[in-house]
């Protein structure tokens, strides 16, 4: 190191700080390499010919091809890939609408209305947060089977419109509690009822919590595998997750490249959402409870 600075003390001090900084970045980069490897792998793999995906260790293709994506256009088992995407999109957006509406209603009641039995209902809701979903799997299926709703999207959507995602109720409630109460009181003096206060005052102010819930709901619904696996029977109704599973079962290694390409395309909406809203997701989630 060619430091020309003054006293010996500052030189060793800044030298140590620099070594520390280099060590820190090396550590962070090492973790980054492990974290990003699978993502880079899937991007590279989708641009490689079949034999190179399996046989080569190189992350990026020697000679990138678009063949895998072109083959995707043929669809899986005669069903165009776009069908799976529009199905997933419909389910995910439908879930978002349901969660934002129903969970914010319940959250408003918990945060802003002094009704009898609120404490008990709140404890029950927190209890459902810890309940393993699988306990409900069989009886819910029996219910929807008796109602002849298997192989429709209703079983996958109904819960979203009935505020069963307690976590989002909780998240929105925490946010609403922190809004100044003077707003409600002023509106009340002007003759506004709860519905008006909820719709015109509280909801617009809760936008950050609503956006966080909406994004997580979209991603959860998009990734969901068990729900569609159980409830959907016809390939025309399959979501992207099930389409991919069908790929694994039918083509196996024969169309490995196509499968990798579709894996990447299936991840894209989630990754794009993440890139666009990452601060919302991370900051919102990390601090929402600490302040409560």
């Amino acid at each position, binding site marked *: 190191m060619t430091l020309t600075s003054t006293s010996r003390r500052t030189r060793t001090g800044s030298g140590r700080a620099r070594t520390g900084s280099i060590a820190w970045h090396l550590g962070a980069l090492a973790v980054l390499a492990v974290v990003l490897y699978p993502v880079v792998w899937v991007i590279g793999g989708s641009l490689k010919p079949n034999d190179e995906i399996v046989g080569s260790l190189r992350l990026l293709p020697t000679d990138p091809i678009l063949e895998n994506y072109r083959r995707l256009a043929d669809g899986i088992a005669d069903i165009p890939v776009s069908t799976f995407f529009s199905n997933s999109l419909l389910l995910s957006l439908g879930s978002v609408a349901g969660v934002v509406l129903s969970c914010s209603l319940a959250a408003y009641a918990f945060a802003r209305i002094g009704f009898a039995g609120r404490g008990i209902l709140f404890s029950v809701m927190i209890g459902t947060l*810890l309940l*393993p979903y699988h306990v409900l*799997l069989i009886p819910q299926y029996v219910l929807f089977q008796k109602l002849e709703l298997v192989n429709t999207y209703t079983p996958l959507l109904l819960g979203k419109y009935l505020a069963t995602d307690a976590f989002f109720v909780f998240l929105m409630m925490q946010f609403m509690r922190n809004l100044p109460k003077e707003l409600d009181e002023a509106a009340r003096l002007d003759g506004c009822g709860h519905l008006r206060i909820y719709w015109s005052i509280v909801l617009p102010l809760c936008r950050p919590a609503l956006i966080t819930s909406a994004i997580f709901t979209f991603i959860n619904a998009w990734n969901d595998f*068990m729900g569609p696996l159980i409830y959907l029977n016809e390939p025309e109704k399959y979501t992207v997750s099930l389409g991919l599973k069908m790929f694994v079962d039918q083509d196996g290694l024969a169309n490995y490249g196509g499968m990798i390409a579709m894996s990447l395309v299936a991840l894209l909406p989630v990754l794009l959402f993440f890139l666009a809203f990452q601060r919302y997701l991370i900051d919102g989630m990390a601090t929402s409870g600490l302040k409560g």
Partner: protein
Amino acid sequence: MGTAVTHVPPAPPAVDPAAPGTAAGGGSATPSGGARRGRAHRENLAGYLFMSPWIAGFVLLTAGPMIASLYFAFTDYNLFDAPRWIGLRNFTEMFADPRWRTSVEVTSWYVIVGTPLKLAAALGVALLLNQKRAGQGFYRAAFYAPSLIGASVSIAIVWRAIFSDGAVVDRAQQVFGLDAGGWIGDPDRIVYSLVALTVWQFGAPMVIFLAGLKQVPRELYEAAEMDGAGTWRRFWYITLPMISPVLFFNVLLETIHSFQIFGSAYILGGQGNSCGPADATLVYTCYLYIQGFENSRMGFASAMAWMLLLAVGLVTAVLFWSQRRWVHYEEASR
């Protein structure tokens, strides 16, 4: 909902269940008793109207199904004939069933090994990131991303590829002289790749640890440093007690979450190898799915579900009981 869900980083504790919000205008009571009663009545009406979707959902999709499931657990039920009461037979058969035992073993192993490793990685990286350095925000975001995609079918497919014979993990082993092949085709080791997958998603608990670390007062470290405490002592006597509520929360949530893994374990084995090879990734929910939906044994599967609930409830209770010994709450010391 449930396992197929991307891991949502839960809000850390500091919840006061006794006071869910404050009553809107409850204090500004009108002087006349009749008007106050009218007001209370209106508040109740409004409250239950706003709660009605949740109440309907709770009755129809949670409470009702739980009662039904408890009944099914004592019946032989194939969905088409009426349930037939068979007492405890589902349970006695379950305990004698070698595949059920396998599923318990695989799940316990996965929870006991995977969860601590994931939390250790989360805490370790959080400590690394808890320094003001250029690029800190970028790293935090990048490390969090796997938590959003880790449970997807896509990543299970990618995982299968990078842990198969001749792929990167296999080659890395060969560098260390271990010529054992990939982990995917090997029933003894495929479950390691499942653990690796859960550790890869350390970002969600890491974000929560980071939030907790930010709350530790700087002065504590400065004082300890003056007293000559080294890095390790400062971690052990300051950091760890101060973030113990967050640690407890992460342990609780991650453990409950691990019990419910399904999609990745189901797919990892690949074509014609659901939950396999040789039942190597037959986690509890996989076997529940097979019994309920492939074998149409709704009664047996319900009994299995109640055993899972019992196990998760027991673990939760033990954790809550243990927190008195190791979780340090600010309020308690005041």
